[in-house]
């Protein structure tokens, strides 16, 4: 049996007409790494190259201790010999097979001793146990995509690749599938590379974020750190904000819940989850304001001390983005240039942040 994956190295160089792809990133061997960027930024090409579906002549793809491609040494492992799972944007189920036969297509091609899941376990994980005898044509869009994910898992992948698995679905179907993707994240140890151009999906699911633009990786790092980088281009800055991983600490008497994180405590409307649950939340830069003293006489309950680490101009004239840290936890605030000047917001200054809104992502 092959060992656990420590890192995933992806280095690609490709010139195709006007389009140039030049990427060299190392991704963690666990959790969800999101490849995020606008259409045409090369995310799907990158994913297809990792799978070997796209033949990139100059590439090095190493999954833990397995070399899948190394052009310098003339190594190219064909797709069907790579222990991967691939979920396409459209479910792409085999229409001539029923759901069970679709699920077991990959599984049957893996020697029994190397199988990591049973059909029943995966069908349960994705809530498709009742659909096994159906034909793909009789499934809803959300069900089809869940079957496609289950089918990929049953091929016992060491790496799961997902190419905008929610993009072809309407909002309701997305909401239907997202909890299952979170379960994959929480219950499986398989690293996932997730391609998306939807900031909400990335904020909700990713642990590691790679930002792609025009075929280049302009940032790669842990999600919260990368989102908090104030120097990113406007694609994400429109929706600037950070993501916090918190733990539900307990309830207050007045129907509020306490969320503990590395830089303090946040109060949100009462949660149903058990105390100790991990909750991810998002704080938009536009919902954060700054004060020099601890504000009093305010209706805002989330007031926290923080230190300014950087300020950068935004695309909106007269506004700046301020990067702060609450202890080790980064935060972004969008304020006017006038306020920045009057409060003298400069790196190193201690301030109080007022957080007007906390969006819970799970």
């Amino acid at each position: 049996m092959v060992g656990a994956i420590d890192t995933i190295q992806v280095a690609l160089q490709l010139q195709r007409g006007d389009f140039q792809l030049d990427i060299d990133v190392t991704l963690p061997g666990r959790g969800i790494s999101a490849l995020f960027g606008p259409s045409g930024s090369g995310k799907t090409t990158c994913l297809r190259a990792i799978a070997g579906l796209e033949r990139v002549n100059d590439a090095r793809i190493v999954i833990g201790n397995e070399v899948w491609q190394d052009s310098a040494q003339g190594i190219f492992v064909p797709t069907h010999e790579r222990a991967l799972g691939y979920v396409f944007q459209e479910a792409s189920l085999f229409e001539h097979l029923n759901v069970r036969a679709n699920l077991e297509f990959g599984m049957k091609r893996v020697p029994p001793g190397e199988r990591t899941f049973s059909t029943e376990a995966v069908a349960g994980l994705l809530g498709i146990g009742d659909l096994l005898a159906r034909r793909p044509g009789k499934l809803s869009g959300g069900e089809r995509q869940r079957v496609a994910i289950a089918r990929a898992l049953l091929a016992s992948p060491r790496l799961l690749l997902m190419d905008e698995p929610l993009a072809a679905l309407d909002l309701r179907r997305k909401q239907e599938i997202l909890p299952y993707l979170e379960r994959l994240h929480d219950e499986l140890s398989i690293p996932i590379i997730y391609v998306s151009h939807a900031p909400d999906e990335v904020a909700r699911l990713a642990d590691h974020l790679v930002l792609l633009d025009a075929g280049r990786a302009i940032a790669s790092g842990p999600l919260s750190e990368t989102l908090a980088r104030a120097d990113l281009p406007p694609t994400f800055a429109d929706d600037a904000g950070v993501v916090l991983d918190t733990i539900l600490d307990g309830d207050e008497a007045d129907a509020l819940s306490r969320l503990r994180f590395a830089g303090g405590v946040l109060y949100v409307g009462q949660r149903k989850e058990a105390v100790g649950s991990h909750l991810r939340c998002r704080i938009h830069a536009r919902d954060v304001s700054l004060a020099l003293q601890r504000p009093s006489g305010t209706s805002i309950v989330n007031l926290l001390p923080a230190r300014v680490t950087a300020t950068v101009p935004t695309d909106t004239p007269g506004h700046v983005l301020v990067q702060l840290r609450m202890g080790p936890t980064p935060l972004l605030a969008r304020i006017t240039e006038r306020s920045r000047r009057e409060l003298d917001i400069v790196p190193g200054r201690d301030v109080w942040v007022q957080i007007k809104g906390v969006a819970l992502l799970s």
Partner: protein
Amino acid sequence: MDAADLAAIWLTLKLATVVTLLLLALGTPVAWWLARTRSRLKNVVAAVVALPLVLPPTVIGFYLLVALGPNGWLGKLTSTLGIGLLPFTFAGLVLASVLYSMPFVVQPLHNAFDAIGERPLEVAATLRASPWDAFWSVAVPLARPGFLSAAVLGFAHTVGEFGVVLMIGGNIPDKTRVVSVQIYDHVEALEYAQAHWLSGAMLTFSFVVLLALYTVNPQAVRGRR
């Protein structure tokens, strides 16, 4: 119908069956290649395969006769191999029919493979299926309507041919005298009653086959050029 007519019918069915099986065996890789290749030869091969659609059967028959004859390169080859000369034999008839009916098998299969697209094969590859495995477990089942059309059209077209048969097969009872030639003989001999019986049988057969094809599989027929 007399014994000669029945012999002609039997020979026709035998010929069409053998030809259809050979056509599927040979046409499938050609159609697969045409559907998947990015080679510049693709259009050349497609055009060559389609030639029988536009050429008079006599042209194909003539060239085959020359090539398969004692001085033709194929004739020399078959003689050297100890097979003997093919013109005016059942084997020669089979060869000519395979060439002549090839487009009727290749085109439905080509369309069917095209319609499957790249995606199911990519999915199969990500599910550990080798290209050979994926061809049999995914492409062939998905192209089933195409195979059905190809077999029916190949069979029916072989039953219906005349010119090539006459050129290569001649008119030898039990060996190369198929129904279409038998009808021709009846008409020549002014035996209109027998000609009616056989022609009526052919008409009915062809209509039933085409009706079945359009009913079972309308798309595949419409997709054909």
